[in-house]
């Protein structure tokens, strides 16, 4: 699903954020991306989103070489990749509902359809009572769930999360993790960037370790997957995606009709 070949990223200021990174994430996999601060985790996610372009090397997503993607095609790539940013990036002047609705409105869905799907997802994430609130009035955990809702509402093939449990109390962190695992079980490829060693330890999932821009370790899934339990004060309801219409996302096929640059 995601393939990197000898990827090198040098920022205009001369900083080499990534050098010679080769890795592969298969469709339906759940992968942790870890490493100390400044290791290049966010940079890697930004490259996948074409927020930045690689300096050297190739990146394939769903079999498409995003290096040769036309600017005009970038939006269509992004629609298939849900992202939860480290700082959430919610729109302050729009309500929770509208923040989540954006992901569907950009695709030109009818208002009715948007209301139905956003309503269901907010319901599942126990955010319905906050639908009319503005992000500034929400707690950190609530904001995080709104960001996740926006990333998931159009059922993307890939979900990228940058520090999804950062700044959250451990219970809330586990709720979020359970939600992400749920999403993954429905077929979505999930990449979680985190430097929370405890979290990685606990779930024993495949982990890619970056250090100063190079891939230093590819730790396979340990098999001893921690039982998925719900925190006592579960903020996230049982199976929030159960009401979602499409059970599984389109997978790699979703990227098939994104136009590449004409040679």
């Amino acid at each position, binding site marked *: 699903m995601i393939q990197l070949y000898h990827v090198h990223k040098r920022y205009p200021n001369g900083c080499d954020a990534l050098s010679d990174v080769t890795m592969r994430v298969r469709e339906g996999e759940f992968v942790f991306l870890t490493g100390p601060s400044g290791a290049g985790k966010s940079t890697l996610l930004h490259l996948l989103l074409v927020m930045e372009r690689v300096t050297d090397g190739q990146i394939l997503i769903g079999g498409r070489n995003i290096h040769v993607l036309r600017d005009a095609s970038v939006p269509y790539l992004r629609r298939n990749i849900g992202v939860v940013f480290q700082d959430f990036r919610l729109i302050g002047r*729009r309500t929770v509902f509208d923040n989540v609705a954006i992901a569907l409105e950009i695709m*030109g869905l009818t208002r009715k359809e948007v209301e139905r799907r956003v309503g269901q997802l907010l319901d599942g994430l126990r955010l319905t009572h906050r639908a009319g609130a503005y992000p500034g009035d929400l707690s950190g955990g609530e904001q995080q769930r709104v960001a996740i809702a926006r990333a998931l509402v159009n059922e993307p093939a890939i979900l990228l999360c940058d520090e999804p449990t950062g700044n959250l109390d451990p219970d809330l962190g586990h709720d979020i993790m359970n939600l992400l695992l749920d999403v993954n079980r429905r077929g979505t490829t999930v990449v979680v960037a985190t430097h929370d060693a405890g979290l990685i330890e606990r779930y024993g999932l495949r982990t890619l370790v970056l250090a100063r821009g190079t891939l230093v370790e590819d730790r396979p899934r340990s098999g001893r997957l921690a039982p998925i339990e719900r925190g006592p004060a579960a903020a996230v309801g049982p199976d929030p995606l159960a009401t979602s219409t499409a059970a599984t996302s389109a997978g790699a096929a979703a990227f098939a009709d994104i136009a590449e640059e004409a040679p």
Partner: protein
Amino acid sequence: MKRGPRIGYVLRQSAQLVRGSPWLTAVSAVTIALALTLVGLFAMVLFNANHVLHDLGQSLSLSVYVKDTATQQDIATIETRLKQRHGVKALKTLTREQDRERNRKLLDKDLLEGLDESAIPGQPVIEVEIDADLASRGDVEELVTWTRAIQGVTSVEDVEFGAEKLRLLFAIVEIARTIGFVLSVVLLASAMFFVFSTIRLGVFSRRDEIEILSLVGATPGFVRVPFLVEGALQGLAGALVAMVLLGLLHLELRSLVRDVYMLNATWSLLPPSMVLWLLIGGPAVGLAASAMSVGRYLKV
């Protein structure tokens, strides 16, 4: 699935933009309204001035005074010469006695009492009625040249023609047109500047939002459209205000023309096509200004 944004979404976002800077939006709309009103007013005045000139041209008359010494033959030559011009509708030749008779009627009864018959002026004269198509100043100049030529004909004593008045009228219309054009351009430019600034402010205050939209997969068009619509709506609001102002001015002018100048004008003072022009022009001006602003400041 290459679909644009839904109209509902665009209108909600544009309304949000208006709420974001209501005063600047209002100023933009009012400036557009003033600019359009001025353009409309000048259009109205010029349109009607052209009507007046056209009407004037249709009923022009000039008097060609013939010398006392002229023979019947000479008069016939002048008549032929006059008839050669296109648009000459009718010729009426008066003898000295007929002209005197005509003048007597024009003079005051009391004044005529003790007056000698020969004291009343009278001269052989050819009255010419012309239907000239006066579309421009050149047409008047051509007419003037023609009358001068007649003046040069032997046995023509003098040609009486209100050309100077016509020339003055045309000059006034031409000055009005130039001033109107310059003022309209200046006002329209400033109206566009206000719309441009309003949209720029909207773009700047929504930088984060614009970036986020693009990150979740919005096309540049999707991000831009609400700003463009906002500009067009400012233009539309301006056009509607301009229409009301012009309607009032129109009524005012009509009563002025009727009551003060006692002219019962048959032509329309506010051509219906102008309403259409305003409805297209307002939004077009707003759209053009916001497109410039978006093109310059909204990078996605």
